[in-house]
């Protein structure tokens, strides 16, 4: 039952490689996504108890990340089906350097997208840290071709960086897994339940080394500074729906790996050690993101650095624990939805204006009213303004920090948020309201609508979700988030 979550996209994805009909392939993408949403819903409504010692199982933390993945993928699937209709067989003119390039074959693209969903789902339901590692590494391998979808030299460079840096990072996480096994003197399996129940008997020295390795390893994939160097390149060079998935779902999945390690350390009574490390890397990521967002000229790279910032916030929240931990769980969900909407808008702006430099996009409100509205709303949401969900989650994290008397951390957190708000406003506001300039005629394809429904509906739905979470928090969801935070090692 649970395995259908992985099996549905995996089977359809593998089959998509061999299907030559375009319509059928796109239908399979939508089918895979719909099936996945249904399977997750069934498992959420009637959760099977997690059997101790089982390879897979769905707990609250896993379900949270799985649900976010499923929703975001549904939005991306709708967008992709329309996008491929526009891009297929087209020779694309490079926006910045003016040379032509082809895209990858569509069959490979759709196949890899569905396999990407399958591997991320496997990450969310893994109860065995070894299996979790295998799944995380598999996400790297199936997503690398997605980043290189546009066949030109900058995407190749981004793909190579992504492959090499993430593979080295994930190898470190494997070392962390082996250290965990050493901590149990070879008597404890890497199963999460087994580790948690025997945590008191684990060797603290090896355990600390193991967490450090897991943090560095999965942190590389999650985009924590200073291991984040692949992230801005991959996010800015990948097609926009791939950036959406990378930022909104893949980073969360890597974070889940760190959370599993964190819960083991907590159970072993070393929660302070892991918590302080998470707080440190969280603040560092936020500061580095702030530095690079100030003066950023490329709006897709700006979004990528914003992802680094938000991963820092997640890490900080979980590190502080308590109320902040719950805030971090809410933040993970809200960030994914908002970033999804923003990347889809960025893709639309890029297509119509043909430029990644923010200075080339002016007065979008005039030529692309809906996109500009969503882009502006997304900017307000991602910087934590009311009434969006991120306002609530960032406030909850702040409240948690203040309650536990971490004044210095709270001050650093607020400073970074403030700087990033101003820096992003300087990029986004002129794009929306700046002086009128018609988009370049060469890049906009006249035969297609500028704001097609396959873009507007998914992007707007994600936005509505974030507004909903900001205006009304059903107690059931709050309880669910608290449980997720508890399992993630909330102190």
């Amino acid at each position: 039952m649970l395995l259908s979550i992985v099996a549905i996209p995996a089977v359809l994805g593998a089959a998509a490689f061999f299907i030559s009909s375009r319509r059928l392939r796109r239908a399979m993408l939508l089918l895979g996504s719909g099936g996945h949403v249904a399977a997750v819903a069934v498992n959420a409504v009637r959760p099977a108890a997690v059997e101790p010692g089982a390879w897979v199982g769905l707990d609250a933390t896993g379900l949270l990340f799985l649900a976010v993945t499923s929703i975001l993928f549904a939005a991306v699937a709708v967008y992709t089906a329309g996008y491929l209709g526009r891009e297929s067989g087209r020779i694309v003119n490079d926006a910045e350097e003016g040379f032509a390039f082809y895209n990858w074959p569509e069959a490979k693209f759709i196949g890899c997208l569905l396999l990407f969903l399958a591997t991320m789902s496997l990450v969310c339901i893994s109860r065995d840290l070894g299996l979790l590692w295998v799944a995380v590494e598999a996400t790297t391998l199936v997503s690398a071709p997605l980043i290189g979808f546009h066949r030109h030299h900058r995407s190749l460079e981004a793909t190579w960086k992504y492959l090499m840096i993430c593979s080295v990072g994930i190898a470190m996480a494997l070392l962390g897994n082996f250290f965990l096994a050493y901590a149990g003197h070879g008597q404890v399996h890497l199963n999460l339940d087994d580790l948690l129940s025997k945590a008191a008997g684990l060797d603290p020295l090896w355990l600390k080394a193991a967490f450090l390795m897991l943090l560095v390893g999965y942190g590389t994939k999650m985009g924590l500074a200073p291991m984040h160097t692949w992230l801005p390149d991959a996010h800015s060079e990948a097609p926009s729906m791939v950036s959406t998935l990378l930022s909104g779902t893949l980073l969360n999945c890597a974070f889940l790996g760190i959370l599993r390690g964190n819960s083991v350390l907590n159970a072993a009574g070393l929660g302070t050690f892991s918590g302080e490390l998470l707080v440190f890397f969280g603040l560092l990521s936020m500061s580095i993101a702030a530095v690079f967002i100030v003066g950023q000229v490329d709006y897709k790279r700006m979004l990528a650095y914003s992802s680094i910032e938000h991963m820092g916030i997640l890490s900080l929240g979980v590190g502080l624990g308590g109320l902040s931990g719950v805030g971090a769980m809410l933040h993970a969900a809200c960030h994914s939805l908002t970033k999804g909407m923003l990347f889809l808008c960025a893709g639309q702006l890029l297509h119509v204006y043909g430029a990644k430099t923010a200075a080339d996009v002016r007065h979008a409100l005039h030529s692309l009213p809906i996109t500009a509205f969503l882009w502006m709303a997304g900017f307000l949401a991602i910087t934590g303004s009311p009434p969006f969900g991120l306002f609530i989650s960032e406030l909850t994290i702040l409240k948690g920090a203040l309650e536990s008397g971490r004044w210095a951390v709270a001050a650093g957190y607020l400073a970074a948020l403030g700087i990033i708000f101003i820096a992003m406003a300087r990029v986004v506001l002129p794009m929306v309201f700046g002086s009128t300039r018609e988009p370049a005629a060469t890049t906009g394809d006249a035969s297609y609508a500028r704001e097609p429904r396959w873009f507007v509906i998914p992007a707007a739905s994600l936005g509505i979700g974030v507004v909903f979470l900001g205006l009304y928090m059903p107690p059931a969801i709050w309880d669910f988030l608290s449980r997720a935070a508890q399992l993630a090692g909330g102190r």
Partner: protein
Amino acid sequence: MAIWTDVFVLGLVLTNFRLLSSSRLAAMIETMVLQAIALTVIPLTLADHPWPLRLMTLSLVTLTVKGVLLPWLLRRSMRAADVQREIEPFIGYTVSILTGIALLGLAFLIAQPLKAATGPGLASLLPGALFSILTGLLIIVSRRKALTQVVGYLVMENGIYAFGAALAVKEPLLVEMGVLLDVFVAVFVMGITIYQINREFDHIDTDRLSELKD
């Protein structure tokens, strides 16, 4: 059997030095085969006779993947990208060897406190494995060619595998198989990317892949 563990760990260390000193890719790939043999034997020397069936299976799969399939993939990429040797690495070969010696010392230093927390039989394995990891990282950061970096990645992966070797007797077989499969696919995907980089740029020097930065 402890003496045999030491012998093969020593083999691992020596192959690392050979990798640090050679510029010809063909020689590096040959050395990878030797390293794969050492990695196959080390878990066997740590286990008691008669060897359990799962351990034998694992050894056989390790030898096939690391000793046959991966070198084959590397040679194929070598032909596709038409590279023979590493030219002008960032860190020269003599300096690489000297750095390697320093790293070996570092590995012993790091392993010292950890050794106390583990059982006997691992006295040489811990520093040997750590040294392999450090060597792999050194190769990745000090060489220009994408293909040499892949070799570095594999050396690092071998070091981590050697860590796991001590646990191979107890851990589920499925995980080990998954790890091997992932590494295999990783090199496969890297090989495809190298081929594309080569076609697009006419070279696979990664230091010239430097347009994306802030």
